[in-house]
């Protein structure tokens, strides 16, 4: 099982204002807020922590099917590109990659190598973006598992948790879109 999250830095600048009053208090623990204030680039730290929380939430809800909005509950600790995120008794590992265009985080239970793939999405229509992502993901799984794409089915549970069905086997996947980027991982 896996969770991932991508943050388009241009989109994060234009669509969110992390400096608005109470924004940080609502999303981040005291320790995380301190980490942000002590960072050279506060903007990047805000969105790195955010992407770690989102990736971990997606992993958590794969293991524990549910839906809620509690970013602050996912407590992040970071060490270089690695991270640990805790939510109540749940604990997972994260890895984060920065480029000048985006921040990408991936979460799994135990140590791992990051395998999320990023694609540029030209359309800004969410439905088209999600269709492009699904097709790219199915193509990749088709190659990886050497099965015809016709035998694959993308599924979203009632709670919105994604997976791909190969014959009767269900493979957990994670997808993320933000601004002009999408990321998917198997």
């Amino acid at each position, binding site marked *: 099982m896996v969770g991932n999250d991508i*943050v388009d830095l241009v989109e994060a600048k234009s669509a969110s204002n992390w400096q608005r009053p*109470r924004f940080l208090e*609502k999303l981040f623990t005291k320790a995380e807020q301190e980490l942000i204030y002590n960072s050279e680039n506060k903007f990047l730290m805000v969105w790195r922590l955010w992407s770690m929380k989102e990736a971990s939430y997606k992993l958590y809800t794969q293991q524990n099917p549910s839906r809620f*909005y509690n*970013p*602050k*509950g996912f407590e992040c600790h970071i060490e270089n590109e690695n991270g640990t995120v805790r939510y109540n008794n749940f604990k997972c590992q994260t890895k984060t990659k920065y480029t000048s265009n985006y921040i990408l985080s991936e979460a799994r239970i135990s140590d791992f190598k990051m395998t999320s793939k990023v694609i540029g999405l030209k359309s800004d229509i*969410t439905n088209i973006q999600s269709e492009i992502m699904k097709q790219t993901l199915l193509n990749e799984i088709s190659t990886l598992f050497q099965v015809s794409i016709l035998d694959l089915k993308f599924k979203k549970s009632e709670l*919105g948790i994604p997976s791909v069905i190969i014959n009767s086997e269900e493979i957990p996947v994670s997808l993320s879109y*933000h601004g002009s980027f999408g990321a998917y991982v198997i």
Partner: protein
Amino acid sequence: MTKDELIPKLKTIIAPYIQDEEAFKNLTEETDFVNDLKINSANLVDIILDIEDEFDIRLENEDMEKMLDVKSAMDIINAKLER
């Protein structure tokens, strides 16, 4: 506040963040912020902060947890206003 009073106020608040015009036009109590309106989860906090400002209330973590659709938003706002 009644449904008829609350829904227009909520619509004004969430309008800047929606990414599905059609779902927004047909908004009902059942409309989901993320699944239907395609609001980015990073913007849910903005909606929460805008609600706090508009209604002069403060939402706790437990309230935020449930803020996923129009109905829960209305319930939470009303519960806070009654206090």
